[in-house]
């Protein structure tokens, strides 16, 4: 092996990569936030008796689950241009991952909603709460407990999926920053090992804090 590892320059660039990690976390957080909101709407739409709503929701869910995440990002990056909408790589990445998250989470939410007996809603309504009150105070807390684990898993996926942005030219997230630094020096192995460790730490930190949160949320 006549290759000498140069770890020092890689470590010197660690601060830049850490700034990139913040962007990565930002994108993952935003995509999961929008994803949860859209997924809730999709889950309700798919369960509704209105044919149009439910078919739109099924199409979204099926497409997002049966095509690669990278394809969805490509669609946002290249495909939206046909409608005259030009999103940058940040926008494309965010739209792609949000689309993906929404589809997967909608199925999770539907499963969760099915696990909650219909009588809960009926009882709440008969006690005088309106639909949104009974959803917020009765159904949602129970749903949260059921879907919490799946949502944390999906967030980990979202964190890992942000790395795909580099393929459509993203250069501010952890993967993009690493790739750009790599193109200056071609110390590929060193730089990407460091990025891999950072990704690992981000996911583990997130899972750890989610675990702590679940201990606090589900005390009873």
């Amino acid at each position: 092996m006549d290759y000498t590892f140069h770890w020092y320059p890689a470590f010197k660039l660690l601060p830049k990569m850490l700034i990139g990690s913040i962007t990565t976390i930002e994108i993952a957080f935003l995509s999961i936030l929008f994803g949860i909101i859209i997924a809730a709407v999709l889950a309700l739409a798919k369960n509704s008796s209105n044919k149009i709503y439910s078919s739109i929701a099924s199409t979204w869910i099926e497409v997002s689950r049966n095509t690669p995440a990278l394809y969805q990002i490509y669609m946002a990056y290249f495909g939206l241009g046909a409608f005259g909408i030009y999103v940058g790589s940040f926008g494309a990445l965010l739209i792609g991952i949000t689309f993906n998250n929404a589809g997967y989470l909608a199925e999770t939410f539907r499963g969760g909603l099915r696990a909650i007996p219909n009588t809960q809603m009926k009882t709440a309504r008969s006690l005088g709460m309106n639909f949104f009150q009974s959803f917020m105070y009765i159904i949602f807390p129970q749903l949260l407990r059921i879907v919490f684990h799946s949502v944390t898993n999906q967030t980990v996926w979202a964190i890992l999926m942000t790395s795909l942005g580099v393929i459509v030219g993203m250069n501010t997230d952890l993967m993009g920053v690493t790739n750009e630094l790599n193109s200056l020096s071609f110390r590929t192995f060193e730089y990407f090992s460091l990025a891999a460790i950072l990704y690992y730490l981000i996911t583990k930190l997130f899972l750890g804090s989610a675990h702590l949160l679940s201990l606090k949320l589900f005390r009873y």
Partner: protein
Amino acid sequence: MNFVSEFSVNDFLYMLKGLGNSIILTLWAVFFGTILGVIFGFIRSATGTLLNFIMGSILDIFRSVPLLIQLILINAFSSILKLGYSPFQISCIVLAVYASAFVSETVRSGILSVPLPFRRSARSLGLSYFQTLRKIVFPLALRVSFPTWVGVTLGVFKDTSLVLWIGIIELLKSSQIIITRTQEPLLILTFAGILYFIVSFCFTRVANQVEKKWEKYEL
């Protein structure tokens, strides 16, 4: 002079070739990934806590680091050692190990889902350890693990789109190449999406049929 040419039959064939590459890559990766995964999963279910913990945390690394970085790292590593693997072989290795991390988890939970009394009664009926595994544990575990395995396979199929980064022309890359020529991203990407959709959808259908066929042997 017109520099932008239309989408032609040749482009269609080119995209199908890309799809073929994706599918072949998936088959190899899932094949080796399943073998590795079953071995790892079996070891993890059969051994004590320490080895289980160590193997679990090593396999967990592959699930906590983006696949794209794994591909880049192994690609760079193979150049460093001058192993001379082709990009296709590298993607096969990476995807197989990646799949095995998921498969081992489902195999482990499948084996652990077989109630211990079943194994004990099989042993007391005179079956040897390996006979018990082959005739009692594995068939029962298979029914539990199969749906998750299908999910893993579909996941690997979708993740083959990432190998374009190390220079393999699969479906998405072939669409991208055609887009740069015809400048009709929406049409071609929709088309690629339909191809992805058809393959995933058919595979899910077949898997559901298999599951239904096994249902009558359910406990």
